[in-house]
C-alpha cells in the first residue's frame, strides 16, 4: 500500500516536470514546476526529512511561484501561449 503511494508521488513529480518542459505557456510551465516541488515535499516527508519538506513547500513552491508571477507580469507575458 505504501509502495503504491510512493509510486503515485514519483509519477506526480515526473508529470509536473514533463508539463513544465513541454507546455506552451510560460505561466502554466512555472505553476507546474511549483506543483512538482509540492509533490517533492511529500516525497521528502516519506524519506524521513520533515525539515526539508517544510523548506521545500514554503520556499521552493510557495515563494518561487510568487516571484515567477511578478517577473511574468513585468515582462508582459502573463498568460497566453507565447512563441
Amino acid at each position, binding site marked *: 500500500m505504501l509502495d503504491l503511494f510512493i509510486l503515485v508521488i514519483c509519477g506526480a513529480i515526473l508529470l509536473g516536470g514533463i508539463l513544465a518542459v513541454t507546455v506552451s505557456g510560460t505561466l502554466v510551465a512555472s505553476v507546474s514546476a511549483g506543483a512538482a516541488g509540492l509533490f517533492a515535499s511529500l516525497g521528502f516527508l516519506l524519506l524521513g526529512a520533515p525539515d526539508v519538506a*517544510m523548506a521545500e513547500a514554503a520556499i521552493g513552491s510557495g515563494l518561487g511561484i510568487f516571484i515567477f508571477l511578478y517577473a511574468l507580469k513585468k515582462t508582459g507575458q502573463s498568460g497566453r501561449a507565447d512563441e
Partner: protein
Amino acid sequence: MTGRSIHVAVSLLALAGLALACARIVAGHVEPVALGELAAGYMRLSPEELTVPNVVTGILLAYRSFDTLGEVAVLFMVAASLGPLLQPMDGAPAPRPVRPMPPASEIVESGHHLLMPFIATFGAYVILNGHLSAGGGFQGGAIVASGVGLFMIVRVGTPVDTRALSVGESMAGVLFVAIGALGLVLGGGFLDPRILPGGELGRFVSGGTIPIVSALLGIKVAAELSVVLQRFRS
C-alpha cells in the same frame, strides 16, 4: 535554419549522456541499512553535547553554523543587489506599460485580517521550536515571508518598507555574529552554543544559545525574503 537543428542535435546528445550517467547512479545505488560514521557521530553527540533533540537543527546551527552564516550572507547580497537590478533604466526604450493590478475584494481583505495572526503565530512557533521538532529559522522565516506575500496581494498599493526591514535584518545579523564571537571567547569555537547552560533534553529552554540563534536567523531570513518579494513587486 541549419544552425538550429545542429543545436538541437548536440543538445539531445548531451541529454542522452546525462541520462546515461543518471541511469548508472540509479543502477548502482544500494539502500544502506546503517548510518555512516559521521552521521552516527552527530546522532550521538547532538543530544549529549548540545541537548538538542532535532539533529538537523543541531548540525545547521552548531556544527556547521559557519555555513549557515555564509548562506544568510548570500541571501543578503541577493536582496541588496535586486534593488539596483530591477530599477527602471534611463537610456533604455520605455517598457510597455504594465496594467495596474485591481484592488483586492472585500472578502479577500477580511480574510487576510483573519488569517494573518494564524500565519504569524505559526511562523513564530516553527522558528522557536526548531530545536525540539521539525523546523527552524529557515522554514519559519519562509512562512512569515509568505504571510508578507499575502499582505502584498491584498494591499496592492501599499509598499513594504524595505529600509525598516533592512535595519531589523542588520541588527539580527550583528547579534548573530556577536553571539558567535562570544562563543569564540567563552566556549570552544565560533558559534559554540554551550556558553549558556544546556538544560534538560526536550525542554523549551535548552540547547544553550541555539533557540536565540534560531530566532535571529528566522528574523534575518524573513526580512530578506520579504525584501526580495517587494523588489519584484515594485
